[in-house]
């Protein structure tokens, strides 16, 4: 019978001699992780369903418009880029309200935030990288739809080149308006997520805010049916002269108010018509103050984070 033999190997501790990159590498790691988290990549199939479902819903209007344009051979007037943003912003807001809290709430709730706090990046780097990850996805989403819509408009035109020459200004407008829309719908849910550890609370608050403020804005700017002093084809709001200001309470329309100006479009709705009567600086100022204020809340909350 042979004696059992054994040997212990000293694995030793080796030094890391490879290159060490700057802080940007850490920021990039948080950004990539945020990007994957938003889309559910690297997780179970269940985590991917909702993001891609909402992604599909956001793209659907553009795809439907493209199909209509090709099937009807340009017999139907397709809605413009401004209208497309208004339609898709509702889906995007729901997408952001549900998905964005995933980027911040679980890290704090489960204590994973400590993992970041002891690495060579500041808490501002962490928040900024998370914000940027969601912003880039949203931006891709809004631009993708607009590209599909633009292509369908160009290809359905009798003379595509002439269409492009006549409407080339739409391209910078699409870029600018999409940027503002994406910045708003990224910042709002992330700022709310910074104030609660529970994703469901953050999502419910954001969706509730849209519904309540939207209903309030719609009601406050609705027509007074008993008013007989109205201008031709228009009606006075039930709130009288204050209606144009009260129309601003609809939070979900804050980016759309600015987008309508960027596209120089005329919105037929009562609320939009009233807001158009306001000095241009008002909707722009409201957008900047609200988005900037929310960004500040997000930053401030994380500066005060204790673990």
């Amino acid at each position, binding site marked *: 019978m042979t004696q059992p033999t054994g040997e212990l190997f000293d694995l030793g501790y080796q030094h890391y001699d490879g290159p060490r990159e700057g802080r940007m590498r850490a920021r990039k790691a948080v950004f990539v992780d945020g990007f994957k988290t938003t889309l559910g990549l690297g997780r179970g199939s269940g985590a991917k369903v909702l993001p891609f479902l909402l992604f599909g819903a956001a793209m659907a209007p553009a795809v439907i418009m493209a199909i209509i344009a090709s099937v009807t051979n340009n017999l139907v007037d397709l809605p413009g880029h401004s209208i497309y943003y208004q339609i898709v912003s509702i889906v995007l807001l729901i997408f952001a309200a549900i998905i964005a809290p995933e980027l911040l709430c679980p890290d704090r709730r489960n204590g994973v935030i*400590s993992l970041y706090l002891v*690495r060579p990046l500041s808490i501002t780097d962490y928040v900024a990288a998370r914000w940027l990850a969601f912003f880039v996805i949203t931006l891709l989403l809004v631009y993708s739809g607009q590209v599909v819509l633009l292509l369908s408009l160009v290809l359905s035109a009798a003379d595509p080149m002439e269409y492009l020459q006549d409407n080339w200004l739409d391209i910078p407008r699409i870029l600018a308006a999409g940027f503002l829309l994406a910045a708003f719908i990224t910042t709002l849910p992330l700022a709310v997520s910074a104030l609660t550890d529970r994703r469901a609370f953050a999502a419910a608050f954001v969706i509730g805010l849209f519904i309540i403020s939207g209903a309030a804005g719609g009601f406050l700017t609705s027509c007074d049916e008993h008013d007989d002093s109205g201008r031709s084809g228009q009606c006075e709001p039930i709130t009288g002269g204050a209606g144009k200001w009260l129309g601003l309470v609809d939070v979900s329309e804050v980016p759309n108010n600015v987008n309508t100006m960027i596209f120089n479009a005329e919105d037929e709705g009562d609320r939009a018509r009233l807001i158009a009567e306001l000095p241009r600086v008002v909707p722009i100022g409201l957008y900047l103050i609200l988005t900037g204020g929310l960004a500040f809340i997000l930053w401030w909350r994380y500066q005060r984070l204790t*673990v």
Partner: protein
Amino acid sequence: MTESHDVIPQTPVPMAPIIDVQGVSKWFGSVVAVNDVSFQVRPGITGLLGPNGAGKSTILHMITGKAACSEGEVTVLGQPARNNPELYRSIGVMSEHEAVYGFQTGREFIEFTAALHGLSSIAESVDRVIGIVGLEDALRRKLATFSRGMRQRMRLAAAMVHDPQVLILDEPLNGTDPRQRLDFHETMLRLAEQGRTIIISSHILEEVETLASTILLMVSGKLAAAGDFRAIREKLDEQAYKVRVITDSPRKMAAALAGTDDIDSVSIGSDGELTVLSRNVTALQRSIPRLAQEHAIRLMRVEPLDDSLESIFSYVVDR
């Protein structure tokens, strides 16, 4: 006045302090978690010991810059610990309650932390540390399927992935089995031999007693002892303890106590309370009830007058 405790280095050659804690206090509202603590830590392994709630994690949070000091100053490698992200290139931290992403595999987790440290040779870094914690076979498994001990080892690997000069480990042995503890000890000793500075906190003395020859002992937010573990034990043995004894027959009890070898002195106050000084508090604890029974004395209260010292003694000696 703050007294600075100089922790004795393991190597005979004196070296500059790597961690310098000066007059540090931390309070949360009206609760004082750390009270005017000062010490220096030099290369080698230092055990941060103390019962649960002693303030160990709070002081580690301040050393790692995760929490601001209410008062005082902490420097690591000569730099301020707070609001200094670049410092984390030189220190590795394993927090007590840090969680991990359950959906990540072991490899993904270490790769992610390597990326957070800005390492370029990520695959090499993972291979380098994973062997140390002995989890090569678990690299492809999701962290959610790991046992607590395995997660601890994976987090230890993450704390070491960037080859830090300073390692700060808060309760690193929680959930580990004896074999893993042995491996952990060997790894830490090897790292210390290379001149690294390692702080290991624990509420279980045995965990670090064989590992760290120098200790920082915290009790109730204060630094109760610092230095060589054996020297502290000897000093505690030399220390006389003050105990108050209240009985229905103080003179009878004083006479009985005076007849034993367990006390240094006994005095009777004007209110009839006995104050007993003893260097052998363990023997005293046994003598008092025995003498009371033998002399038919009714004991009403026995309590230490120096609670802090009693705690240290219980912790270090009465194990």
